[in-house]
Each structure stands twice: as C-alpha cells, then as structure tokens.
C-alpha cells in the first residue's frame, strides 16, 4: 500500500460524509452562534439579524465582572486542588500492577462519565441533614446534632473537585506512564529519599505537563453548569450557569451567545497555551 496523496473523487469519497457532518453540524452552528451574538434581541420574541455590540457592552457591568472573576477564581482553585491531589496519586497509580491499574481506571472513568445531575444529587445527599455525613459525626460524638452542609461554597468546591479529579488523573496518566523509571532510580541510587526524588527529579521533569494539565482542568472546571445550581447559592453561579440561564429562562439568546463567544476565546487561548506547554516538553 503506497501512502500518497489521494486523487480523484473515488479516493476522496470516504471523507465526504464525516467532513459534511462536521461542517454542517459543528462549523455552521458555531458560526451561527457568533453571528447571534451581534444580533438584536426582540423583547418577547427571539432575535433578529443586526450588527450591534450592545450584548458585549454588558460585559462592562459590575454584575458581569463579579460573575466572571468568581468563575475564573473558582476554576483556578479547583484546578490547583485537583492537580495537587491527582499528581502524586497518578504517580503512584502507574507503578501498580496492570490489574490494579485497570481496576482504578475503570473506577475513575465511571465517576468521570457520571452526569453532573447525578454528582450534584449524590453530594447534596451526602451533605444533607437526614442522610449526610454529619450523622456520622454525631454518632462519633464530634457534633451535637446533624446539620445540612449544602448549599454552600464548600459543598460546591467539594463537588467540583470530585468531578475534576478523575479527569485530572486521566490527563496526567499518559505522561506519567511514559516517564522513564530510571530517572527516579538514578536519584535513589545517589542517595536521595523517595520524597526528595519525587520533588527534585519527577516534578521538575514534568513541569510542563503539570502546567498543561492545570490549564486543561481549569477549562474543564469552567464548563461546570449544574453543580453551582445544585450545591451552591445564587452568588456562586458561574459564567456557564449564567449563559444557560440567559438562553433558556430569560430568552436572551444574543447576550447568551456573546458570553459564550467570550468563554470560547478564553478557553481557546488557554488550550493553546496548554498545547504549547505540552509541546515544549516533547522537544526538550
């Protein structure tokens, strides 16, 4: 089989269907959304074509600024916590036997694919007064009577880290699984303790991976739209929640689209940075 450039319609035919599907059902909707962001909202109706930037001007309000900085801050906190826990965890994971690794991976994948609805429901049950963890504290004598811990910022943070942790492990997994084991062995032979070898050899060797993963988890956390509603209070609503709210309940598609375009730009810039950081490691 010679691998050369395809010629003629017959050789190009297989790619027609996927290309068509992706253009019609991804590129066009995406472009349409960008177009809608400069359309004019018709009160009571939907929107009509126009070229106004009023939807973008609303970004300058204090309310939007507050939501934006809260979303970014929350995502940063979730990313830092998840990577902080997941990195040492994954480092141990790749050293387990193949069977044990597979059992962990199945477990993590199962949690990762759980619907946000289910994660939100499960956490609010775990933190509730009637079925929650405080009952355990009461039984242990640490608390006088059970109380509800949700909704609160702590509940939201716990739910988000819970959701992001498996994702973080799976993003880190390839890099750590491919890490040359001799690197650490050399450090150990030269007399450093396991902890010291981890911090002075493994972490610096994977610095760019850690940066890239943190950014990816940041974008992942930015996308959470149900947990803030289920586990947080209204002041904990993030940009994703606000977009959904504007699009569905306020029927203000143009404003929702403008915020979505903004979110795309932030995410794409960050993903670009992550790819750059990842690539530098490969060439290094």
């Amino acid at each position, binding site marked *: *089989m010679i*691998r*050369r*450039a395809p010629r003629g319609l017959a*050789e190009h035919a*297989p790619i027609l*269907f*996927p*290309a068509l*599907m*992706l253009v019609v*059902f*991804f590129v*066009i*909707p*995406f472009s*349409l*959304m960008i177009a809608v962001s400069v359309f004019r909202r018709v009160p009571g109706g*939907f929107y009509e074509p126009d070229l106004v930037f009023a939807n973008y001007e609303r970004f300058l309000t204090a309310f939007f600024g507050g939501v934006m900085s809260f979303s970014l801050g929350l995502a940063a906190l979730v990313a830092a916590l998840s990577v902080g826990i997941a990195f*040492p*965890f994954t480092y*141990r994971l790749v050293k387990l036997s193949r069977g044990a*690794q*597979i059992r962990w991976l*199945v*477990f*993590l994948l*199962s949690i990762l*694919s*759980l*619907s946000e*609805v*289910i*994660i939100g*429901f*499960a956490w609010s*049950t*775990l933190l*509730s007064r*009637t*079925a929650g963890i405080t*009952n355990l504290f009461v039984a242990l004598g640490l608390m006088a009577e059970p109380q509800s811990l949700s909704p609160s910022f702590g509940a939201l943070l716990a739910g988000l880290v*819970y959701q992001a942790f498996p994702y973080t492990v799976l993003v880190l*997994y390839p890099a750590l*699984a*491919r890490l040359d084991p001799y690197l650490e062995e050399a450090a150990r032979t030269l007399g450093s303790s396991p902890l010291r070898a981890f911090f002075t050899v493994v972490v610096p060797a994977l610095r760019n991976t850690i940066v890239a993963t943190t950014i990816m988890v940041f*974008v992942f956390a930015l996308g959470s*739209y*149900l947990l803030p509603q289920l586990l947080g209070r209204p002041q904990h609503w993030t940009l*994703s929640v606000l977009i*959904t709210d504007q*699009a*569905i309940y306020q029927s203000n598609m143009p404003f*929702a*689209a403008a915020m*979505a375009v903004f*979110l*795309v730009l932030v*995410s794409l810039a960050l*993903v670009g940075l992550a790819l750059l950081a990842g690539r530098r490691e490969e060439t290094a």
Partner: protein
Amino acid sequence: MLMRTLNSLAAGLIALVLSAPILVVAGVSVNEKKALTFPPQGFSLAWYAEVFTDPGWRGALVTSLVVATLSAALAVLIAFPLAWFLWRWRAPWARTFEVLGMTPFILPPVITALGFLSFWAAVGEYGSPWTVVVSHAVFFVTLPLVTLSLGFGAVDRSYVEAAATMGADDRTVLRTVVMPLVRPYVISGFAFAFVLSLNEYIVAYMVVGFTLETLPIKIFNALRYGYTPTMAAVTVLFVTLTAVVFGLIAWFGDLPRLLGAWAKND
C-alpha cells in the same frame, strides 16, 4: 515501610471519598419509607421496581438508551471513515477535520449546546426528537475518533503490504485485514460515546429539553420537587451500568493503551 503504609492509606482515603457519595445514595435507595435517610430504615427494593413500572421513569430510561445507542452509532459512522482516510492517505489538509472533531469535547459544553440551540432554531427543527441524536453524535465524535486513530495506528502496515501484493484492493484489505484488527477500537469508541451520551445533560436539555425527557433531564426536573428514593435508585442503576460498560471495555480491550500509556511491547 512507613512510606508504603502512608501511600496505601492515601489511596484508600481517595477511594473512600470517591465512593462515599455513591455509597450514601445506594443506602438511601433501599429505604422502606419515602424518605431520604441514611443509614436506611428498613430494606426495600420498591424504588428500583418503580423505575421500571412508573411510566415517567421508564419512558425516560428508554429514551436515554435509544438516544445513546443511535448517537454513539452515528458518532462511529462519522469517525470511522475519517480516521481510516487519515491513516490510508497522505492528506495533511484532512487533519483540519480531525481538529474539528476534537474541538467540541475540549470547549465548555455549554458552548456547543448553545451552538446547537441556535442552529436547530434557525432551521426550524428546534425540539424535534431526532436533533438530539445528531447533536450528541457530533458532540461525542471525539471519542471514537481518538480510539480509532489509536486502532489504525496500531495496524502493522506489512500485513497490508502483503495483502496488496497478493492483489487485494483497498476494499478487500479493509474488510479482511484492517477491520478485524481495529474492531476492539470501534467497540470501545462506541461504548465511550454511549456512556457519555447516556449521562449528558446540557446539550440534550438545550436541544430537546421541552419535548423529550432523557434520564438526566428527568432527574434534574424531579430534583425541583424534592428528593425521592426513586432518584437514588436511578442513580445507582446508572452508576452500575456505566461501570459495567467500562469494565467490558477493559475486559475486551487494552484500557491503559486506550488511555495513552504505551503498550507493553512498544
């Protein structure tokens, strides 16, 4: 020695925290009375029965399974020719479509959801049940695309050379040599897309939220009227189903390799 104990302790703690919400929900789901208490009072599987006998819950379950099956199949139908084309021919421009297939998965899901909402509204199909199948297929095409790229990448090209030398054309090579080798990757790509579609909320909600009730939409709607043990039962069923699907992928395929570790013989 101390280090080892600490490590196992930490791993145990992580496993406990990860399972705690699910365990509590499982406990709640077997309550005898219609109350969310833990530890459960009495033992009853009535709430599990209700998932299958109550028309609302059963309908949502069937809807979700049908949507997930069809959209995962469509996602594979989109991904397979694309991945094959990229493997078979030298066509750098075609990578554009690969990137397009990966993008929706990386961006925050609300963006893709909003794009679909504007699109289906513009073409006058907003709310039609089949739109969620197409939307999910495009949204999750990344998964079969990734598994199939790995699958084709693993095919030893000398087998293909051998078949071609003996006079097999592209179609015959694909059917008799390549297909058997990439079949596990087709299945795992399908399974990944199936499970994620089953659990997906925001795209389904924005596209058909007012006309069709998938299970996650049904749970979310029901949450507003208070928590019931039935939701807990549905959750347990879903978690089990998800774990079984991934367990099967791991059983039949090479899960560490699918997730990016080198295979043992690389």
